[in-house]
């Protein structure tokens, strides 16, 4: 779509989205009020992944998501978080792709956002369980899922609004 025509344009768009994601990630980390659960985040930065997905496609979304995870890990000083959020991003984009393939028009950006949020957490907890060799961490998934469903809903709505102003012709599109 809007970035598929030119290679340079695509690179610029990915760069723009990644940097936006980094800024959102940072902005979110200094918001004090959103700490319902340890490890629970609003996930504002995922807006850019969602945007990349609906404006360009799975590949771009994966690229933007992984780059953002890597860079925010490096900048944030929490290098070990790269492996968690990296796998989270991988699986959440995969889930979004599957949702698009199997359900196409029935699920909009908001639904993809919630699915993505869930799979992000599920992958994160799984990686944690593998690394710690402790399956009890899975008991943390249900409360995390409740929080992530609401956060996913919120970020999905945000992403949809941005999408509309980015390309108004997508208005009717799911």
């Amino acid at each position, binding site marked *: 779509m809007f970035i598929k025509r030119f290679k340079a344009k695509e690179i610029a768009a990915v760069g723009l989205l990644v940097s936006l994601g980094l800024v959102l990630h940072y902005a979110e980390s200094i918001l004090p009020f959103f700490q319902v659960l*340890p*490890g629970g985040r609003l996930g504002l930065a995922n807006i850019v992944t969602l945007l990349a997905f609906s404006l360009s496609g799975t590949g771009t979304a994966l690229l933007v998501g992984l780059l953002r995870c890597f860079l925010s890990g490096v900048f944030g000083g*929490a290098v070990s*978080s790269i492996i*968690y959020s990296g796998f989270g991003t991988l699986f959440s984009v995969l889930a979004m792709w599957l949702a698009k393939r199997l*359900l196409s*028009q*029935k*699920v*909009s950006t*908001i*639904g993809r956002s*919630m*699915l993505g949020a*869930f799979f992000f957490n599920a992958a*994160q*907890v799984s990686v*944690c369980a593998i690394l710690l060799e*402790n399956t*009890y*961490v*899975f*008991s*943390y*998934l*249900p*409360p995390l*899922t*409740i929080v*992530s*469903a609401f956060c996913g*809903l919120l970020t*999905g709505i945000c992403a949809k609004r941005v999408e509309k102003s980015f390309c108004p012709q997508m208005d009717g599109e*799911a």
Partner: protein
Amino acid sequence: MTRGDKIIFFLLIVGAILGLLCTKLLFATGGDSQVVVEVDGKLYGQYSLQEKNGKTIAINTEFGYNKIVIADGRVMVTESDCPDHVEIKAGAIEKNGEMLVCLPNRLVIRIEGRREVDGVVY
């Protein structure tokens, strides 16, 4: 918001609540939790925390005398010949990892069992 979105939201919430219930059942003070009693660092005895009618154990050793009661999935010390009675004042313990200690009598009572999650680090 499409119908599909609403269904996803609904499924996630319902799934999470089911998951919560499951973990409550699975990880609640595990059915196989054990009360471990140690005297002077050596194992004195091991008892199931799930005593139906309650169990009273008198511990008589060279270090002193204590009486502990296991009932309703909880353990407490009811009698002691030590001077301070700290372990009696501590009340009852019920969760894995909790401890009652009587230092003068070198007695440690600990609940062991399925490990509960201490924390998740991101």
